């Protein structure tokens, strides 16, 4: 017994080091291997509050670009209003087209990272405003990411510039589906993988979200085709997609709150159980 105590006292620094190293390595590995359940995230009272303060200052510096974007969006909405489609057409039942009635929550980016392989965005609204994990985040130009963690007042978003992110997407004119990933290289480009080689694609085609997931409604802009190549030994295309969004400069964003989401998730869960 005496010897054990002596050993502990003699090696207290080393034991302390090993203990703390173990904790921090466990946190690291945990954050790399699971899609969710981050123990330490910036969606908490302290860091959320600090980032909000910093953002108040930065906002003044970006007022001009933010205004430009709003003007552009206003113009687009006005044009939609004036060139409204014929209302005498019979409305299609929405389950056929895959369009789900969706609510929109407006929020603001208070912290944005884009220089690592796994990037996250922090927003200044959280569970109090009705944000839940797995909701889609977009802005006027295109998609941004998927909500990861929420606290009462803040939430973190897995950016599309995150190697763990996988989003269902399709080619606008031909309806061929693929999954959108990022190779960790450039902030302006993401990759659309697993597109069958039957699909006819050419440079400049638009990529939009597919309607196969409950996260995003169908048809939200992502980007344009920049380069097409074939992954070796498979019969699938990999497409380099040039994003509409400048992911390094984000202001206000919209969070899509699909009304049918809970119902769909429950249904899918039930099917899986049976």
């Amino acid at each position, binding site marked *: 017994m005496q010897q054990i105590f002596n050993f502990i006292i003699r090696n207290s620094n080393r034991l*302390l080091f090993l203990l703390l190293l173990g904790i*921090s390595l466990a946190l690291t590995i945990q954050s*790399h291997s699971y899609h969710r359940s981050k123990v*330490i995230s*910036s969606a908490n009272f302290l860091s959320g509050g*600090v980032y909000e303060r910093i953002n108040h200052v930065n906002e003044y510096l970006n007022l001009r670009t933010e205004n430009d974007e709003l003007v552009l969006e206003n113009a687009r909405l006005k044009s939609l209003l004036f060139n409204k489609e014929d209302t005498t057409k019979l409305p299609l039942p929405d389950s056929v087209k895959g369009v789900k009635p969706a609510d929109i929550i407006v929020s603001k980016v208070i912290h944005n990272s884009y220089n*690592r*392989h796994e990037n996250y965005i922090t927003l200044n609204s959280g569970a109090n405003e009705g944000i839940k994990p797995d909701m889609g985040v977009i802005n006027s130009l295109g998609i941004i990411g998927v909500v990861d963690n929420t606290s009462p007042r803040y939430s973190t978003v897995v950016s599309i510039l995150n190697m763990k992110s996988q989003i269902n997407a399709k080619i606008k004119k031909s309806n061929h589906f693929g999954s959108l990933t990022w190779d960790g290289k450039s902030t302006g480009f993401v990759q659309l993988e697993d597109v069958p080689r039957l699909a006819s694609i050419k440079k400049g085609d638009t990529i939009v979200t597919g309607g196969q997931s409950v996260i995003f409604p169908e048809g939200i802009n992502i980007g344009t085709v920049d380069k097409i190549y074939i992954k070796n030994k498979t019969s699938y295309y990999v497409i380099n997609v040039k994003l509409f969004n400048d992911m390094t400069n984000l202001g206000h964003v919209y969070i899509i709150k699909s009304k049918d989401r809970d119902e769909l998730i429950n249904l899918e869960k039930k099917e899986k159980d049976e």
Partner: protein
Amino acid sequence: MNSALLVNIFRFIMLLAIQIVIFNNMNFLGYISPFPYILYIILYPVNSNRSGLIISSFLLGLTMDMFCNSGGIHATACVILAYYRPYIFKFSFGLSYEYQTIKLNESLTPERFSFILVSVLLHHIILFILEAFQFKFIWDILLRTLFSTIFTIIISIIIIYLIKPNKR
């Protein structure tokens, strides 16, 4: 004793604050970002309590991880740097470093520079390896480590000169 403790707590908070407010927003060419917050570990008094250094470095790294959404990579790198700091001292200043009163924030000698260089390099290489976590990014890791190290050292030396106490 008490004033040294206060100075350390002050340094801890100030370095974290400027790291989060200023240096986390710096990205030269998309991948070069400096981490001068590890000056806290480098400037910690030589003969002070070693377990105190290890625990406070862990908290320092954990706070950084919280603000960067990065799991535990800063905490791991900081704890390793804190534990191996005496060995780096031995490497840079020779065996008898414990009997000298080394103050890093005096004039920059080659020994002091080599100490800062080795510490920053050790911290950054662990940080970027854990961040990428895959072997196919090995060139990316080395490139990021190299440029960020140069950048961190330049900024650290500027900070050391700025906070140098006045000569009485």
